[in-house]
């Protein structure tokens, strides 16, 4: 059947043709509360996640600087922190050792879950999925709103726990029992731990609601022509992230619920043979290693929940700003799929020293090392995309390249740690800290910053200051390496992580100067983030007005008005005719061809198989469908 369309349309694809007047009229008459607070619009929800994420990032970063002061300057008088920390500063002007553990725990929890899971996935999955696949909104706006408010409730509880007299949870972000299960063990395992568990349960609900929505939207709500092989890599990354979330977060929920029963109801899933003050506890027959299995079954996929969105964002930004098609589009998807699958069968590499069977250890070691293959494919593709490109060094691009650098540096140490034999020496040392802060922490954080710089014009209709962005990048990039590179040496020398102080042992006094350098670099890096904060908030209100398509990108979000209203496109949703990476196509007029341009309009640059596509569609010109100027809606 002939399916040649005659579109009589009012310029659906206006790229850079100056639609600059404010399209800000709301399509539904909502008041302040329904528009900005209890909004069901995916763009507002994305921004809510972003602002909350920035708040948590600032808090999490500040906590780390406080404990870095202790590690870098063990003799320093911290009396001046008394107005903020109150009783947690001892009369001698020192940080309370138990509070040090609470700081480490909360830094980890906040950064992994509240910043790099909710702040990253929540922001960009919500904001970009409907815009880039051509949908009016998420599959369920109401569930999406619930997702944010569960996250908010979880945030409030976690925040309250910081102000408890007994302090927040202090058993490490992995909350291993029995330390986390027994209030007698450490003050933080009292009410602080209870709040931690309740907050995390709410967080899991939020994350699942979000993930169900993301998957459902990507599969069912794509615009005409948006086949899976025409999806931007950002969407592929968010899609895999959501699948991993759906499969792994329930397991953390299962683990946390059993821990709640052990703590508050007296069961013994994780507890056995514990003596306190010579008295045996009633708990008998449990196994703490069981918790580790359940926890790391989430915990390892969680690493990729954090990392994949950042990799997707950087794929998009690197292709756009290299003005070249992404190298190996299908290899990128394939490697993300492979990483997602492998992420579920490597969890025990976190447990090599729990006394597990060495044979089992070598199986997990083999599976772990295989992850290097898809990761290397991704790095290779980033570099080959950059190779001989017309690189535009926007702040977003700089941060994306920074991500590739961290991903490589941190990934290589992963090969060391994945070896069950070497892990005996390196386990729980600063080598591990250096490894995961580079490969997952800093890389994902850079992905998040890259995404903010790149999509800020779409979020707020204004541009961020480029110069300040570049200054922010260079200080942060150098700062991060100065913080985490020395930690490799400290770790190989055998320094264990989570220790309050090493001054008691003469052996460990050798690296005092290196620790001081790390702490200074950490302060510098945190300070640089205030440049970003200023740039971000100043530009929301005072930034230069953004053009319709500031980066000359191909994806659909740049076909919306400058400030897209509810429903994203004022008229019909544009259809998609090509993949999103037609940059610098030989023969083309411009160095980019947006996805909304049909092949029939670009005969000069079509490849043979693309010309085939046009012929196939217009074999007989008999039933030409003439559609009116106002086309019927998409649904």
């Amino acid at each position: 059947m002939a399916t040649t369309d005659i579109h009589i349309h009012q310029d659906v694809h206006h790229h850079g043709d100056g639609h600059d007047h404010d399209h800000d009229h709301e399509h539904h008459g909502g008041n302040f509360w329904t528009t900005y607070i209890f909004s069901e619009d995916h763009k507002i929800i994305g921004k809510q996640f972003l602002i909350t994420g920035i708040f948590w990032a600032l808090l999490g970063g500040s906590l780390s600087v406080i404990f870095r002061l202790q590690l870098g300057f063990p003799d320093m008088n911290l009396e001046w922190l008394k107005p903020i920390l109150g009783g947690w500063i001892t009369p001698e002007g020192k940080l309370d050792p138990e509070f040090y553990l609470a700081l480490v725990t909360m830094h980890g929890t906040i950064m992994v879950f509240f910043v790099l899971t909710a702040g990253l996935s929540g922001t960009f999955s919500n904001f970009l999925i409907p815009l880039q696949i051509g949908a009016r909104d998420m599959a369920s706006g109401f569930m999406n709103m619930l997702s944010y408010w569960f996250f908010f409730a979880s945030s409030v509880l976690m925040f309250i726990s910081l102000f408890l007299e007994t302090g927040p949870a202090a058993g490490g972000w992995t909350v291993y029992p029995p330390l986390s299960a027994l209030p007698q063990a450490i003050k933080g395992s009292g009410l602080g731990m209870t709040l931690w568990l309740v907050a995390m349960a709410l967080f899991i609900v939020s994350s699942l609601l979000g993930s169900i929505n993301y998957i459902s939207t990507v599969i069912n709500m794509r615009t005409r022509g948006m086949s899976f092989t025409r999806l931007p890599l950002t969407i592929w990354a968010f899609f895999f992230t959501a699948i991993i979330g759906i499969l792994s977060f329930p397991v953390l929920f299962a683990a946390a619920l059993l821990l709640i029963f052990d703590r508050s109801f007296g069961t013994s899933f994780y507890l056995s043979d514990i003596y306190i003050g010579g008295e045996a506890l009633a708990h008998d027959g449990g196994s703490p290693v069981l918790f580790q299995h359940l926890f790391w079954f989430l915990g390892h996929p969680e690493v990729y929940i954090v990392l994949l969105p950042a990799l997707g964002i950087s794929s998009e930004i690197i292709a756009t700003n290299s003005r070249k098609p992404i190298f190996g589009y299908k290899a990128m998807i394939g490697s993300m799929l492979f990483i997602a699958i492998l992420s579920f069968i490597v969890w025990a590499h976190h447990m090599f020293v729990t006394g597990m069977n060495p044979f089992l250890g070598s199986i997990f070691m083999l599976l772990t090392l295989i992850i290097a293959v898809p990761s290397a494919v991704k790095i290779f593709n980033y570099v080959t995309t950059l190779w001989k490109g017309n690189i535009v060094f926007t702040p977003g691009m700089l941060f994306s390249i920074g991500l590739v650098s961290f991903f490589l540096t941190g990934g290589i140490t992963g090969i060391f740690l994945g070896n069950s034999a070497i892990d005996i020496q390196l386990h729980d040392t600063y080598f591990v800290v250096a490894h995961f802060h580079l490969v997952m922490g800093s890389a994902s954080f850079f992905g998040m910053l890259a995404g903010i710089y790149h999509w800020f014009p779409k979020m707020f209709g204004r541009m961020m200051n480029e110069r300040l962005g570049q200054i922010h990048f260079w200080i942060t990039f150098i700062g991060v390496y100065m913080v985490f590179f020395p930690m490799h040496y400290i770790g190989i020398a055998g320094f264990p992580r989570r220790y309050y102080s090493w001054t008691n042992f003469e052996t460990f006094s050798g690296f005092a100067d290196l620790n001081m350098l790390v702490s200074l670099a950490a302060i510098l890096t945190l300070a640089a983030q205030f440049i970003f904060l200023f740039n971000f908030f100043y530009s929301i209100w005072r930034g230069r007005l953004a053009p319709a398509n500031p980066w000359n990108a191909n994806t659909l979000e740049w076909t919306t008005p400058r400030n897209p209203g509810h429903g994203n496109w004022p008229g019909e949703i544009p259809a998609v005719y090509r993949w999103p990476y037609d940059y610098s196509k030989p023969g083309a007029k411009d160095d980019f061809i947006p996805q909304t341009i049909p092949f029939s309009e670009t005969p000069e640059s079509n490849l043979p198989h693309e010309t085939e596509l046009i012929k196939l569609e217009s074999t007989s010109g008999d039933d030409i469908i003439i559609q009116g100027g106002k086309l019927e809606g998409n649904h």
Partner: protein
Amino acid sequence: MAVDIKIVEEAKRPLSMNPRKFGLWLFMATVVMLFGAWTSAYIVKRGDMGWSEIILPDLFWVNTGVILISSGTMVWAVRAARRDVAEQLKIAVGITTVLGIAFLIGQLLAFDQMVALHEHFTGGPVSHSFVYVLSGAHGLHVISGVIVLVIALVAALRGRIHRGNMDTLEMCATYWHFLGVLWLYLFVFLLLNK
């Protein structure tokens, strides 16, 4: 407005299904992972030393029968709705709801039987705690299933479920069958791994 006529190739509409139904399947996937985690933990724990064998309450057999019959009446309800036989639909959904509530009461009585067998949630061996966690968490999901059934029942009584409007009933049926199969899995699992 400039009207220009262009002849372009057609953009194919991508494959898609009802997003709500799809969301339900994703939700069921999360429930599978939740119980998958617990039953895996159960197997791991059972391999440890000092595992104390469990005696399952007889009522579990009865309750399994009840929930299986309720799946049957659910099938009947969907068939009745497809044939637009409103009376049968109301009766079938009504019976399913009553059986669902009966299952919940039966599970509570089964807990009593376990207590009588000196199998307590706390204080005893882990194996006993596991039975309470598995059946209790399943019971909570059944409560949500009964709520969905009541919603479907009200919709059926008001005549809002018919051949042209099957979504509510079909989603209700999918979830209810899922809960039945989930219980069957848990029960057989416990029988095989006492």
